[in-house]
């Protein structure tokens, strides 16, 4: 009946005889070690391009920026003269700098809070099974894939002072009487910048947090359901604690991205009206590149570096402590 028996019974009927067969022939000589076997040298060789890239594109400009910030270099007078902390005291005494500093903090904190909340909600929806999930996922990811130039044109039109479709809709519902001038009023302009930035970053944050949701074993969700946890309790006691490590990484990346980002400001308002939406990165750009004062631009750009470094270290440490799986 079962052919397994035959294989067991007959095939290995006399194992002893097999092992007492003729002596095995001596092994052939191993081939000589070639260059490709030399892992020590190869490792260094393969790492070289990356190391050169980092030195050339990150380390060198960074050190140059530090040197610039203690000099009086401008595009008109590129000779490096050491001036101590003069550039630093100049920017610390400037009103625009402090506006930009406040704006950077506001911009980062509010947009990160919105991004994390929205991304969590979207991730919650997208990990579920429903008809048309593929299409919804595609639509959620779309803003990330839209080229900045194209998005800028659309948003400039949406927020236009005269032709804004948002205004049309609001007027049609009778919610407003006159145009809003989104980019012309300080608070609305900042709000618009935050909205567009959130629109850009939410897709990535959603994907990262979705990965966190999917990493929670299915049986843990089942167990919570059997243990009588409703939606909110499951969210509060299971889902959020278990996605904290990955959310923290998302926040870290998002915050650094937001701190250093000037795209949205540059496209929508160029820091206006009257510097009301200036952030540190855009201010560094306008001051150092457009204004030609390389030294002050460098000082502005470097101002947040120690702060960001400390925040990054703190978050990464917290993530390692809270790793639970």
């Amino acid at each position, binding site marked *: 009946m079962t052919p397994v028996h035959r294989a067991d019974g007959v095939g290995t009927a006399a194992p002893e005889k097999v092992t007492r067969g003729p002596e095995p022939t001596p092994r052939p000589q191993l081939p000589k070690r070639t260059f490709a076997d030399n892992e020590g040298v190869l490792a260094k060789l393969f790492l070289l391009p990356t190391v050169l890239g980092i030195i050339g594109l990150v380390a060198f400009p960074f050190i140059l920026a530090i040197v610039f910030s203690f000099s009086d270099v401008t595009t008109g007078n590129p000779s490096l003269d050491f001036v101590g902390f003069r550039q630093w005291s100049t920017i610390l005494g400037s009103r625009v700098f402090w506006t930009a500093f406040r704006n950077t903090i506001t911009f980062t904190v509010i947009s990160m809070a919105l991004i994390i909340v929205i991304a969590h909600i979207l991730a919650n929806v997208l990990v579920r099974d429903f008809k048309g999930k593929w299409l919804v996922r595609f639509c959620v990811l779309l803003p990330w894939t839209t080229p900045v130039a194209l998005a800028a044109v659309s948003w400039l039109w949406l927020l236009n002072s005269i032709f804004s479709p948002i205004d049309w809709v609001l007027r049609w519902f009778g919610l407003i009487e006159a145009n809003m001038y989104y980019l012309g009023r300080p608070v609305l302009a900042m709000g618009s910048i935050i909205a567009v930035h959130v629109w850009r970053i939410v897709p990535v944050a959603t994907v990262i947090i979705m990965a966190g949701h999917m990493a929670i074993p299915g049986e843990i969700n089942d167990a919570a359901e*059997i243990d009588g946890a409703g939606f909110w309790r499951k969210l509060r006691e299971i889902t959020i*604690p278990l996605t904290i490590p990955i959310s923290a990484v998302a926040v870290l990346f998002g915050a650094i991205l937001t701190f250093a980002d000037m795209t949205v400001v540059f496209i929508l308002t160029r820091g206006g009206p009257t510097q009301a939406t200036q952030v540190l990165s855009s201010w560094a750009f306008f001051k150092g590149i457009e204004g030609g004062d390389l030294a002050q631009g460098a000082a502005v750009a470097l101002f947040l570096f120690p702060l960001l470094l400390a925040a990054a270290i703190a978050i990464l440490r917290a993530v390692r402590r809270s790793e639970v799986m």
Partner: protein
Amino acid sequence: MAHVVEVRGLKKHFEKGDVQAVDGVDIATREGEYLVLLGPSGCGKTTLLRMIAGLEEPTEGEILIGGNVVNGLPPRARGIAMVFQSYALYPHKTVLDNITFPLKATMSDRDARREKATWAADLLGIGELLGRKPRHLSGGERQRVALARALVRDPSVFLLDEPLSNLDAKLRTSARDELKGFQERLGTTTIYVTHDQVEAMGLGDRIVVILNGKVRQIGPPQEVYSNPADTFVATFIGSPPMNLIDRGDHLLGFRPENFLPLEAMSSHGDNLLEVDVQVHRIEYLSGDRHVYATTSGLGPDDAHIIARIPATVNVAVNENGSQRFAVHEKDLRFFDGETGVVTEPRQVRT
């Protein structure tokens, strides 16, 4: 007496992959019974358990717990507790918080929850682990935490999904023993899913053998072992499996331990079926001898047979020798050649 759990005509069809996971199952547990669902992986036993738990909705059929239809009710309203294969402990909570978690839904008093959790933990001998996180526990300790978490719910039925498969072989034996003793003390009806026939035989009051979403046999372990309903049950249960010899329109079956050298058989007036076999190989396993042999005396073709000679039988058996073996006619089973279902005894004299 009301059945604690009963399923009637239960079916589950998964749209994805067009799988009929459970295909018309009727089972009723008895009060305080240890019922084991046994089958190979993918046979639908876990899906069946998940439907009873309320984690899957059946496509067709009814589930009754304590006499009430619970179709459509969420798991928390069914009075069940489940222990998962991975134990599914909440990794960020301490053992105490894991055990009190299900109580938060029903018990508002914090001290009462703590008291109940401590009671369950002491019962399972994990009282000193309450402050630890699951990642600092061994496999056996995790399993006890999962049991304690199930226990505090005072369920009317325990559902256990392969709770021993993550333990190493040595621990598994003692954990099996503890599980059985634990259930006997509590007297709670338990449904236990496993693919391991040894666990099923050792734990179950009754075994439900499942294949391809259908129940093949329900019965006490001894019954399922000695009177298998078909060739699948005959070969799935028992190690080595039942010998099956193709005789054209039917199959002749007998257990390896019933097939012994003629000298070792005591006839006691029973009729013996004697046959000459050609021995090929002998394995020594836990004191028993497993003899792999062929014979031409039982059917039209040469048949492969395994005999299991217990350690207490000292008759010499030689590899590559010919020897006369025998089996009591009362130990012979007959199965239909087409369907594999058990049939009437036939004439076997050759």
